[in-house]
């Protein structure tokens, strides 16, 4: 009699709960119980396999470079290597959330550019540094808002809305500067891009704080977790009561603000804002996020993977600079690497489904 036993279990839920992990006999008797076959296998997800592969490649690359040139892993070189990619790294954090929720935003390089210029112009106009920064970040967030609102309202793919913004922002930057470099910032603005905290460059500390916070929240916070559901199955996310549009607005605004931070850091580092900033940065960012395991269809991706992806790019660029191999080859290497990562990911996924 399944009925009576179910009631029996119901009356002592704790006992039934305790019996689940090891004792099969109790549940087998119910007659309507089944075991999830295959779940006992140690299941490594495709994502974590990609991360392991990425770590392995980074290690091999770093060791072989170190053998080649013993200054490669020196503190000085590591600092140079990392600092060069901090703007991309900061932007990749936002892009990870956007891509997990199934979107894309290629306007970030334009946001970086315009924010570097705007923060400089505001300071040169006499505004105190903190106020200039806050106003600039408001602008950055607003651009993100415009981006996703266009996509939501007109039901266009965010690729298209962000493409239009990228072109528009690049053009605007030329218009407001006349092509000239903006410079002559106050000294206190240097702290972000040129100074250190306990000997570590401020921008690296900034990135680490942002990455750890966002990474932790993405894993453990109810609100940010929604990204995975929206990217995994948007329709059912909506059915489950997730306010999809509201989350996407959040994700794109955050992404815009992070690109704004990247622009301010860049301006601080060079003590100037030039219209050449951020050239192709959006492509490097997307490549890094994809290398880190985020899929273009949404639903997958981690901050750890993204950070490794960025580090890999930084390593490749630095390795080319140090070995003196024609730097024209560096994008070839990264393109090839991305290709391998994509094929590897697809292959692993297929093999898992087949099993």
């Amino acid at each position, binding site marked *: 009699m399944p*009925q009576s036993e179910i009631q029996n279990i119901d009356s002592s839920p704790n006992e039934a709960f305790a019996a689940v992990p090891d004792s099969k006999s109790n549940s087998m008797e119910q007659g309507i119980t089944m075991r999830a076959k295959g779940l006992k296998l140690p*299941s490594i997800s495709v994502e974590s396999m990609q991360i392991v592969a990425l770590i392995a490649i980074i290690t091999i690359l770093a060791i072989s470079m170190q053998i080649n040139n013993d200054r490669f892993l020196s503190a000085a070189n590591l600092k140079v290597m990392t600092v060069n990619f901090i703007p991309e790294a900061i932007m990749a954090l936002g892009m990870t959330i956007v891509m997990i929720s199934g979107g894309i935003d290629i306007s970030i390089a334009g946001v970086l550019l315009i924010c570097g210029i705007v923060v400089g112009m505001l300071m040169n106009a006499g505004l105190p540094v903190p106020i200039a920064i806050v106003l600039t970040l408001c602008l950055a967030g607003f651009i993100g808002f415009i981006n996703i609102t266009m996509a939501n309202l007109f039901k266009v793919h965010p690729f298209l809305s962000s493409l239009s913004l990228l072109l528009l922002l690049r053009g605007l930057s030329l218009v407001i500067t006349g092509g000239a470099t903006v410079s002559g910032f106050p000294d206190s603005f240097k702290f972000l891009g040129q100074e250190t905290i306990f000997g570590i460059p401020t921008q690296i500390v900034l990135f680490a704080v942002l990455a750890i916070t966002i990474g932790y929240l993405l894993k*453990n916070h109810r609100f940010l*977790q929604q990204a995975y559901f929206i990217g*995994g*199955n948007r329709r059912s996310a909506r059915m489950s009561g997730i306010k999809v549009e509201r989350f996407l607005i959040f994700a794109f605004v955050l992404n815009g603000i992070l690109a704004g931070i990247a622009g301010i850091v860049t301006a601080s580092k060079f003590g100037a804002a030039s219209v050449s900033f951020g050239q192709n940065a959006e492509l490097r960012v997307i490549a890094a996020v994809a290398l880190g395991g985020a899929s273009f269809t949404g639903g997958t991706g981690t901050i750890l993977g993204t950070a490794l992806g960025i580090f890999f790019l930084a390593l490749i660029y630095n390795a080319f600079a140090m070995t003196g191999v024609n730097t024209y080859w560096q994008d070839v290497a990264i393109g090839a690497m991305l290709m391998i990562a994509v094929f590897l990911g697809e292959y692993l996924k297929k093999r898992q489904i087949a099993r």
Partner: protein
Amino acid sequence: MEAVLRVENICKSFVAGTPVLQDVSLEVKPGQVHALVGENGAGKSTLMNIIGGIHQADTGSIYFNGQPVVFSNPLQAMQSGISIVHQELSLAPNMSVAQNIFVGHEPVRGGGFIKWKDLHANARLLFDRIGIEIDPTALASKLSVSMQQLVEIAKALSFDAKVLIMDEPTSALSDKEIDRLYAIMRDLTARGVAIIFISHKLTEVFAISDQISVLRDGRMAGTVDAKGASHSQIIQMMVGRHIEDLYPPKSSAIDENVIFAVEDFSKPPHFKNISFKLRRGEILGFAGLVGSGRTEVARAIFGADKKDTGKIMVEGKEIKVRSPQDAIKHGIGYLTEDRKVLGLFLNMSVRENIVAAGLNRFLNKLGLIRHRRIKRETKHFVNFMEIRATSAEVAVINLSGGNQQKALLAKWLCAKPRVLIVDEPTRGVDVGAKAKLHSDLRNMVEEGIGIIVISSELPEILGLSDRVAVFREGQITAILAGNTTQEEIMKYATV
């Protein structure tokens, strides 16, 4: 007994002037399974979506526990105790089972941080309650379809549902799994939960339901006690007329010409030593349990999967099939079991879908498309197949399941194949459309082609086939005459 849910005089139209629901009323009592049946497009899903807060009624009211309620989103309905188990599986693949169940109402500590231990413990308690054992930390993508279905039920129950709406919950389940589902449903009703059960399969409806309500063309055709009702009475209420025969008469026009033959097809472990012949004008049924290799053989014939060894002969000549394009070129069509994923271009129009496989027939000498001829022919097919759509330009996604299946059949009809393989041709299709699809298949073979029908419904195999090939564990164990019996087929299909 006081009704837990009362729906009164609901009207709803999405496009002004074409009502989907008209003056629909329904009463659901606690502890009962209330079946809701009706043809595709009758308005069942719309009614459920209104009750579940996904859509809002234009006029009319809903009373829950005697109180009038208005739900403006699904979450409100779920929190009040009305949950839907949707027909299409909707779990986020890369999230754990527990996360999927509690999405949107995870146990959190202050600031919204998820309490993982509680989350997993709560999921285990829910699984215990419905008597299944799944690891709450497993990724949803690792579960079988039937397991995912059970997780969906657990998800619906996680809100302590008083009314559970199940939309075609059995369509992806095997017989054994369906029995388990019934046991869970009975257990839930024993605790006072009311279940609204939507199904196309009347046998299931009679097996589990206490009450049956029938929707027809957006109106409530009536509610009856399951005990006193008969199949034919329900069918009559559904279609508004009496359906004489679900199956057309068998063929009179089989000639001895073998139009298609397969010899020694093998691809261990999926299938081996598959040989059979198909004659002109014949419908050959492929019977067997789920997983016996029928679909795998069909996919290999069509070039969708690779085979290891074996020959395909069309009209006596051996042909090489390495891809679906090759198969189509030689006149082999395959109507897939999964029409949404593999068969149709959902966002494209009925017209574009119909000509998708037969575009070669509409090219002029320069290789340009002859649009006017396409329009004329698709119009003919829409009429001939009785596809219910406002025009051939409507996107297929807007059609009901039965009409989508008709469009898919029209697509292959339009490609003028010599051999057509149809895989579960009437899955998720209502009775009226079923009879129409069956007679269409018969009409197609009468025009001189051969058809292979794969179906898990034995009555369908028996009703349609001129001969039946029975599969077991990747092999054909018998080829029986069309007048065989279910028992005979089962004898060869099982060990």
